[in-house]
């Protein structure tokens, strides 16, 4: 039975204060939720625990003994592990080798890799996290959700005493999430202390024993989970109460904006769907069911091999994203790091990227217009950023996600394809994004919403299509959309 205590932790980055006196206590066998808005400092606090950053001041004790976490190595020795919010994986290596790096001592045979032992062990772990892949496959062939499972699996390989999980479920759907909870439970039984970060509040009530809330880098409170409720946590976290987490508006759907007829690409087949003006259409399914691939086909990224698209009533061929953008189709990608952002670019340059041609005069960028737009979106989406000239890589995960969304707003498209638009976004900001979606809907925009967050999908969509193994398994009108119905279709059942 051991206790990890972080007391009065302070941390700032080049003069900007990020953590201001934070406390956190975890015991072995316990799950502590860590809650806070985007940019509140959760990831930073955890990175201090794993030796990636050093605290400016404060004390960390393990069983009453003060420990100094001055290196990654030291933190590892002490048994502190972490599942990173941003996937920390090697795209160029196989799944098994991703498990190997950092854990070589388990599979070391006088300097050589014992591949048989490695593959065996990885196979077990993949089963444990429910990932149907062989260990020798290249990591880069996996979708984001699958990669997240690998990241989770990696932490099971190490003998950890305390494990920080930074939004492990942000790209997981229901089934995988439940699997993860079973894993967490068994870890606790083995005496591991878990720090669990998530913006999906329901999960915290499911899995944690206590919740610690941060706001703006400050410690707000720690509550046993039985003694609190969602409303209280939300108001502790954002400093005000949020009435309606899923605001909806009713709009009578207009004409069909996008219609697919027998759409087929290398990854999906026989997809027939429609999205109308003034409508939010949900696209659900399990991880790897091909939702992203549908989005890619609608936005000119993937080649359509048979069937066709009808846009605003006319057949359309999209040979590149450029053509899609010109036609008025915006694609908010799910993988912000790889596909959504130019990380070293400033926020200003990122949000203006798709609309540059419109901001050009005599070939030159109109920088004042650009700056004004950047300031507008920062305000509109409450993006937490020190300066619009800061590189987006220094933003917190959720704020980065908002930037991905923001860059399409100036384009004034007719169709938005949103692939996991609220991945890693906090409750308050989520509500803002929903309100934004509603506004767009009222303006007569068509929205295709892909989401693994079931409550969000159910609440926000006017209709829901569900995919299963690369094809549309069925369509659910608003009145029939329930968690059970979606899950039934997603697992290959029928309505």
């Amino acid at each position, binding site marked *: 039975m051991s206790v990890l205590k972080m007391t009065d932790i302070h941390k700032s980055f080049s003069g900007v204060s990020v953590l201001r006196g934070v406390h956190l206590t975890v015991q072995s066998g316990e799950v502590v939720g860590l809650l806070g808005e985007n940019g509140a400092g959760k990831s930073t606090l955890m990175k201090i625990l794993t030796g990636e950053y050093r605290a400016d001041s404060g004390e960390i004790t393990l069983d009453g003994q003060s420990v100094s976490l001055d290196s990654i190595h030291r933190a590892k020795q002490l048994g502190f592990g972490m599942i990173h919010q941003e996937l920390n994986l090697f795209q160029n290596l196989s799944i098994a080798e991703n498990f190997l790096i950092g854990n070589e001592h388990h599979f070391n045979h006088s300097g050589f890799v014992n591949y048989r032992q490695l593959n065996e062990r990885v196979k077990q772990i993949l089963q444990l996290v429910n990932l149907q892949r062989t260990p020798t496959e290249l990591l880069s062939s996996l979708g984001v959700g699958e990669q997240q499972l690998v990241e989770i699996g990696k932490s099971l390989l190490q003998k950890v005493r305390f494990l920080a999980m930074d939004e492990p479920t942000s790209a997981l759907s229901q089934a995988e999430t439940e699997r993860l909870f079973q894993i967490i439970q068994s870890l606790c039984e083995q005496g591991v202390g878990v720090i669990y970060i998530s913006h999906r509040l329901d999960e915290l009530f499911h899995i944690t024993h206590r919740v610690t809330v941060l706001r703006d880098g400050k410690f707000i409170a720690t509550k046993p989970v039985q003694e609190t409720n969602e409303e209280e946590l939300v108001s502790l976290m954002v400093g005000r109460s949020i009435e309606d987490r899923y605001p909806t508006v009713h709009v009578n759907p207009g004409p069909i904006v996008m219609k697919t007829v027998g759409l087929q690409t290398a990854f999906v087949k026989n997809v027939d769907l429609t999205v109308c003006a003034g409508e939010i259409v949900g696209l659900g399914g399990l991880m790897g069911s091909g939702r992203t691939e549908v989005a890619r086909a609608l936005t000119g990224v993937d080649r359509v091999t048979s069937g066709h698209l009808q846009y605003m009533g006319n057949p359309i061929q999209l040979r590149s994203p450029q053509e*899609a953008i010109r036609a008025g189709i915006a694609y908010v990608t799910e993988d912000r790091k790889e596909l*959504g952002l130019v990380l070293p670019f400033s926020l200003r340059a990122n949000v203006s990227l798709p609309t*540059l041609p419109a901001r050009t005069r005599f070939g030159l960028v109109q920088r004042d217009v650009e700056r004004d737009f950047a300031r507008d979106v920062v305000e509109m989406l409450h993006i937490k950023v020190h300066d619009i000239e800061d590189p987006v890589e220094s933003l917190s995960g959720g704020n980065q996600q908002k930037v991905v969304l923001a860059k399409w707003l100036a384009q004034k498209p007719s169709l938005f394809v949103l692939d996991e638009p609220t991945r890693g976004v906090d409750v308050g900001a989520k509500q803002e994004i929903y309100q934004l979606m509603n506004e767009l809907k009222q303006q007569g925009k068509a929205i295709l919403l892909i989401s693994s967050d079931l409550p969000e999908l159910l609440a926000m969509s006017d209709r829901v299509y569900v995919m299963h193994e690369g094809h549309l398994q069925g369509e659910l009108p608003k009145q029939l959309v329930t968690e059970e119905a979606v899950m039934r279709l997603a697992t290959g059942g029928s309505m």
Partner: protein
Amino acid sequence: MERFGAVIRRYHLGPLIGLVILLFVLSVLSHQFFTFGNLRNVALQTSVNALLAVGMTFVILTAGIDLSVGSSLALSSAISAGLMASHLNVWLSALVGIAVGAACGLLNGVFVAYARLAPFIVTLGTMTLYRGLTEIYTNGNPIFNLPNGFSNFGSGSVLSIPIPVILAALVFILGWITLHRSTYGRRIYAIGGNERVAYLAGVPVKKYLVSVYVISGVLASIAGLVLTSRLSSAEPTAGTGYELDAITAVVLGGTSLFGGEGAILGTLVGALILGVISNGLNLLNVNSFYQDAIKGLIILAAIMLDRKKANSR
């Protein structure tokens, strides 16, 4: 104040500090160094590499590389000179040379962008190919007997500033505006920063990739015209090894070979550092056996000053 720090970071003033130190040391060591005449020489001697380095900056910003510049220079200037020697109009001959440079770049660009081949190996192949074509065209002999008017272009000056220097300065200003103020330039950085993100944001990535190699080829041919005119002859071996000097200027100037990061002012500084080193070693009459070692040490010292930048490779 805060803005000033940002400017230093953004425009990589590290190498500039290196250049200033170098200028200072040389002024102390040689009283001829800091004279108008000598600085004019340095500028003139840097102009060819500077022209190549501007094109190279564009290419490297897209995470590419162009090893073929020296050979493109040789091929285009051999053809221009050949035409001039056979009494074609000078301007027309020069234009044909530039067209040849553009064609060299176009071939590189098409291989890189449309066949999706690694720029290093593509331009290594074309470097050898263009050199071979130059040898075939010239039969291995220099082309001389060029019209006097053409020679004046390389050796003439306006207000005692040599024409090649003015030309290089113009190209730098154009390059700066293009890279740092135009939409085109922004998109070049975006491609280098994350090609897929740029593509998804509607940037016609392939066309842009082709364009940077064409720019590099065109500037190589202009550099070739400057060189030919300065020497009043086109050599089949002209430009051998120039790609390395151009790349060095770019990298010394703080631009990352991995694309998306860097600035053209750094390139100018990088090119000047190289030019100043050669000039200084000559002025001080350093024993030729020691020159290489000293040059190596200065390059290492110069980048040490840029440490902070390199951190974020």
